[in-house]
C-alpha cells in the first residue's frame, strides 16, 4: 500500500504504462521541463525523454488531432489539455473525428487514445479556466468518460484508460490534485462502468462525481447527526455508467439526490435523473433532487465563486428537504 496525492497517482499510472509499452507517449502544452501547468508530469521528461514527453505549441486542435492521427497509426497517445475549457478550440477533432471515426469507418479502425482534462472551479481562475463540461462530452457517442474522486481510483482508472482501444476522456478536478489516499499500487486496472459506494447508508442515495464526492461525504457526517444515513455512490465513469448500483441503492433508500459541479441546466446530472425516472421510478417515494452549480459562468471573486460551487451545506439543506 502507498499513500499518494491524486497528482502523483496520475503521474505514476502514466509512468507505469509508459515503462511497459514504448508506443505510449504523452504530449500537450508545457508537459516537458515545465512539468505541466499543475505539475502532473513533473519529472517524466527526465525518465522518458523529449520524444515521449513532448511539449506542443499552443494549438489545442492540433493536440487532439495529433492524438487521433497517432492512435490511428499504431501509437497510444495521452494528450493533455491545460484546462478542460480549452477543449472548445479542439472540439471538432474530438467530437467529429476521434469519437466518430470508428463508427463512420464501419468499425475498421481503433483509436486507443486518452485526453486528460483538468476541470472544475475553486482557484479563482474565472469563467474560461474553471468549467465542468461533463455534459458536452457525455452527449457524444464514441467517447468513454472517466471522472475519479480519489488518488487510488485515478490510478486504477487511468491504467484502464490507457489500455482501452477507444478514445477516453479523463477528467481531473484541479482541487483534487492535492487530495491523498492510500491504495495498492499493484492493483489491477479498475473496470469502467463499475461505481464505487463511498459510504453506505439506508436513508438516502447521493450520486456524486469528482470533488462533489468529498462534499457529499462531509454532508453525510452532518446528516448523520440527525439520524439521516446517506449512501454515497461515485459512478467513477460517466460513460459507461453503472446504473445497476445506483438503482439498487435507490431500491433500498427510496430517495435520490444527484450532485455535480456542472451548471445545473443541461447537466449530465439531468441525464442520470431522467434514467432513474424512466427505469427506477417505482423505487422512489419522492421527487429526484439535483444539486448543481448556478446557471452562470464561473465567477472570479472568491466570495462569488464559493457561492457558485455546490457545497456540503447545499447538500445537507437539500437532503433535509427530502424528509
Amino acid at each position: 500500500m502507498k499513500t499518494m496525492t491524486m497528482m502523483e497517482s496520475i503521474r505514476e499510472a502514466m509512468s507505469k504504462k509508459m515503462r511497459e509499452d514504448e508506443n505510449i507517449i504523452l504530449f500537450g502544452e508545457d508537459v516537458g521541463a515545465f512539468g505541466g501547468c499543475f505539475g502532473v508530469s513533473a519529472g517524466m521528461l527526465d525518465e522518458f525523454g523529449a520524444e515521449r514527453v513532448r511539449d506542443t505549441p499552443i494549438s489545442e486542435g492540433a493536440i487532439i488531432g495529433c492524438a487521433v492521427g497517432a492512435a490511428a497509426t499504431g501509437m497510444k497517445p495521452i494528450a493533455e489539455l491545460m484546462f478542460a475549457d480549452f477543449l472548445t478550440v479542439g472540439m471538432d477533432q474530438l467530437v467529429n473525428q476521434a469519437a466518430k471515426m470508428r463508427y463512420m469507418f464501419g468499425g475498421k479502425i481503433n483509436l486507443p487514445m486518452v485526453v486528460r482534462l483538468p476541470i472544475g472551479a475553486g482557484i479563482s481562475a474565472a469563467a474560461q479556466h474553471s468549467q465542468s463540461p461533463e455534459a458536452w462530452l457525455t452527449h457524444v457517442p464514441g467517447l468513454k468518460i472517466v471522472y475519479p474522486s480519489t488518488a487510488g481510483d485515478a490510478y486504477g482508472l487511468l491504467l484502464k484508460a490507457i489500455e482501452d482501444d477507444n478514445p477516453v476522456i479523463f477528467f481531473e478536478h484541479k482541487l483534487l490534485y492535492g487530495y491523498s489516499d492510500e491504495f495498492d499500487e499493484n492493483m489491477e486496472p479498475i473496470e469502467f462502468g463499475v461505481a464505487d459506494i463511498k459510504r453506505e447508508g439506508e436513508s438516502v442515495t447521493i450520486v456524486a462525481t469528482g470533488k462533489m464526492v468529498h462534499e457529499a461525504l462531509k454532508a453525510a457526517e452532518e446528516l448523520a447527526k440527525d439520524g439521516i444515513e446517506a449512501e454515497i455512490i461515485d459512478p467513477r465513469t460517466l460513460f459507461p455508467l453503472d446504473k445497476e448500483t445506483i438503482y439498487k441503492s435507490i431500491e433500498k433508500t427510496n430517495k435520490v439526490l444527484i450532485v455535480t459541479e456542472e451548471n445545473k441546466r443541461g447537466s449530465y446530472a439531468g441525464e442520470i435523473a431522467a434514467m432513474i425516472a424512466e427505469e427506477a421510478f417505482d423505487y422512489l417515494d419522492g421527487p429526484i433532487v439535483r444539486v448543481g452549480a448556478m446557471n452562470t459562468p464561473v465567477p472570479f471573486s472568491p466570495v462569488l465563486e464559493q457561492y457558485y460551487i455546490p457545497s456540503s451545506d447545499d447538500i445537507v439543506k437539500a437532503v433535509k428537504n427530502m424528509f
Partner: protein
Amino acid sequence: MCRGRDNLGGGIILDLTKEKIVAMYTTMKRIREFETNASRLFAEGSIPGFVHLYLGEEAIATGVCETLESEDYITSTHRGHGHIIAKGGDTKFMMAELFGKETGYCKGKGGSMHIADATKGILGANGIVGAGHNIAVGAGLSVKYRKSGQVCACFFGDGSTNQGTFHEALNMASIWKLPVVFICENNLYGISMHQSRHQAIQDVADRAVAYNIPGVVVDGNDVLAVYEAATEAVARARNGQGPTLIECKTYRHKGHFEGDPAIYKPSEEVAQWMAKDPLPRITNYILDNDILTKEEVERIDLEIREEIEVAIKFAEESPLPSLESIVEDVYTDIVEEVR
C-alpha cells in the same frame, strides 16, 4: 521558394518509366469512370445523401499517390473518391458504400464522405473541411517516433487553408520536421466562393514561407508535373527534411456537390479550364510520344469500364445493412442499446 512546373509542356523526369505513365493514365481513367457513373447514379436516385465529385482533379491524387508506397498514409477530404482510388481503394467496396450497402467499406455507416481503408493507409475521407490536416500531423509524428520510414500525404482544398487547422498543422509539422506532404488542390472555389473572394493571395503556396518550409506551385492538371513535385517532396519527407506544401492549380468540373448547378462560375472560365482537362492531356501525351497505341489506350478504357460496371453491379446486388447493425461499431467493446 515557389516555382512553376509544366511537364506535359516538355519537361523531362528521369525516373519516369513507360509503366508508370501507363499506370497513372489507368488510375486517372478509373477515377473519371467512377465519378462519371457516380454522377449518373446520383441523378437516377441510386445514391443517397451528398456526393462531391473529383472530376477535373484526377491528375493530383494520381500523381501524388504514384510516388507513395502501399504502407504510406493519406488523409482525404469530402471530395475524396479520387484519393481513395489512387491509393488503391477497391471500387466495388467504394460503390457499395455510396449505395449505403452492408458490403461497403464502412458497412453503410459512412457514405461518400467517410470512406477509409486502414489496410491501405487511407486514414479516411472527411466531412469537416480542414480536419485532415492535424490527423496527418499525428500520423507523421507516429511515423517519426516509430522510425518506420513511411510518409503521409495530406490532401485538402483551397477553402480549407482558411481554417485554423491548416496553420496549426503546418506549424507543428514544420517545427518537428515530420514526414508529411501537404497537397493543396486549389480548384478556385471554396464551395461557391471564388478564391479571389476568400483569400487575398493567389498562391496558397506562399503560406509556406510562414512555416519555413518549401512551397511549390504546380499545374494540377498535368499529372507528370504533380508526380515530379510529389517525388521531390516525398523524398524530402522520407529523408527527415520535413514537410512540403505543394499547391496544385486545378478546376472542379462540376458544382460543389451533385445537384449544385454552379451558376456562380462564369462560362468563359469553365471553357478555359475544360480546355485544360487533365485526361485528354495525358492521353495525347501518351499517343504523341508513342508510349501506347490508340488501340492499347482503348483496351485500357474498356477494362476500366468493365471494372466500374462490375462495381455498380456489386453495389446494386449487395444487401442493405441490417437494422440491428446500427448499434455496432461505436466502441470496440460496447454495443449501444436499441431504442
